[in-house]
């Protein structure tokens, strides 16, 4: 096990981190936009957001190929205008991660914003705060535990993404070999030691993130409630 190449770990972290940032911003944006609003088509849009959660990863990968492939709608345009190719690059892995983890972020953020006490935001408005200020000083900080949960879940989901990534980014050692890819192709090649190492790494990563999140949210739940302070 001396000649282990650690690039899959770094690549996985890079892909998951970038995708988490994108998903966090867009997820929070849409969740806030739709919170407590009832409009025609909301259910349809939300169902579309949730779709990657229930579809087989191969279907998501297929759809992404159609969109981002050399002849795809977006892929063609990116190639012509920016000379950028998505398929078989690590950016493809990022896009696959974004699509599969967005539903988790959106759902957590929507639940967090919906459960806010509406009167607190109204109080801020009567005190003269603009919608922008209401968001940053009241809604965001109070929704933060839920938003953080979404963020961590998205990151963990991004780390573990395999199916759609395989279809869009393929397996190119040193370029698109994230940990899940490395495990699959190590087993294929009969390199059980290498596969075991990566399995241990990803289990440790996943377990510690979730444990940390659970610990953190339990501690935070208590922050603004009476019962625990007086105890």
């Amino acid at each position, binding site marked *: 096990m001396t000649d282990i190449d650690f690039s899959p770990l770094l690549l996985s972290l890079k892909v998951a981190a970038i995708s988490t940032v994108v998903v966090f911003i867009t997820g929070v944006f849409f969740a806030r936009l739709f919170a407590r609003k009832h409009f025609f088509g909301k259910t349809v849009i939300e169902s579309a957001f949730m779709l990657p959660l229930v579809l087989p990863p191969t279907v998501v990968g297929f759809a992404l190929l159609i969109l981002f492939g050399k002849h795809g709608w977006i892929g063609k345009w990116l190639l012509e205008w920016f000379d950028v190719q998505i398929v078989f690059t690590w950016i493809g892995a990022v896009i696959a991660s974004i699509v599969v983890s967005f539903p988790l972020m959106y759902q957590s953020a929507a639940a967090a914003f919906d459960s806010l006490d509406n*009167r607190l935001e109204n109080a801020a*408005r009567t005190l003269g705060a603009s919608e922008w200020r209401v968001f940053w000083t*009241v809604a965001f900080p109070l929704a933060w535990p839920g938003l953080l949960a979404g963020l961590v879940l998205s990151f963990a989901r991004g780390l573990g993404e395999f199916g759609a990534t395989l279809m869009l980014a393929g397996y190119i050692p040193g370029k698109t070999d994230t940990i899940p890819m490395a495990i699959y192709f190590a087993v294929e090649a009969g390199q059980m030691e290498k596969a075991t190492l990566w399995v241990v790494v990803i289990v440790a990563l996943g377990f510690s993130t979730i444990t940390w999140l659970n610990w953190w949210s339990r501690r935070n739940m208590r922050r603004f409630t009476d019962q625990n302070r007086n105890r």
Partner: protein
Amino acid sequence: MLEVSIEKRLSHYDLKVDFTVDDEILVLFGPSGSGKTTILNTIAGLMQPDEGSIKLGGKSFFQGKKESLAVQARNVGVLFQDYALFPHMTIGQNIRYGMKRKDEEHTFVVDQLMQVLGIQHLLAKYPHQISGGEKQRAALARALATEPSILLLDEPLSALDKQTRIECQDELIRLHDMWKIPFIIVTHDLEEAEKLGDRILFLDRGNIIDEK
């Protein structure tokens, strides 16, 4: 002077009221569900009437759906039921949240306000660390620190025990004498209505049925 003449279709009845308020304490009295809070919300701008107009001292708040002033621009102070203090901010941060000016003169006014309300020692505490009566005073200070042109109070004393309630009633009357702006207080406690109100409007199912 506040002039209110509005109509709004609610799920069980139509709200239709017409009244004016000078720099006095007006009490809206009625059973729950009689439309009292809805009236406050339309004045604050948190809800839209279907028709009518709302004017405060010549400034139009609402004149048909197309002409509605944003909540932020109305300069209305609101004391919410259960106070709606921001739980993640200290009492001091809560009170300063809506301050429009931070100059010496205004800081002096706010300091004085906190002195009158006896809450200076609470500034570093969080809302969940103080009592109901203290929360009520902190919320009052927060609403008045914006120097509002009118103060709306939604069941301001209902969450308090009897002793605290009597103290707070006296305090409200004192504050009104100091501030000299219209106060509109919503309550379903007749004794309280009679003690606080210069005038009482009796509401039932969205209509004013009596005035005292």
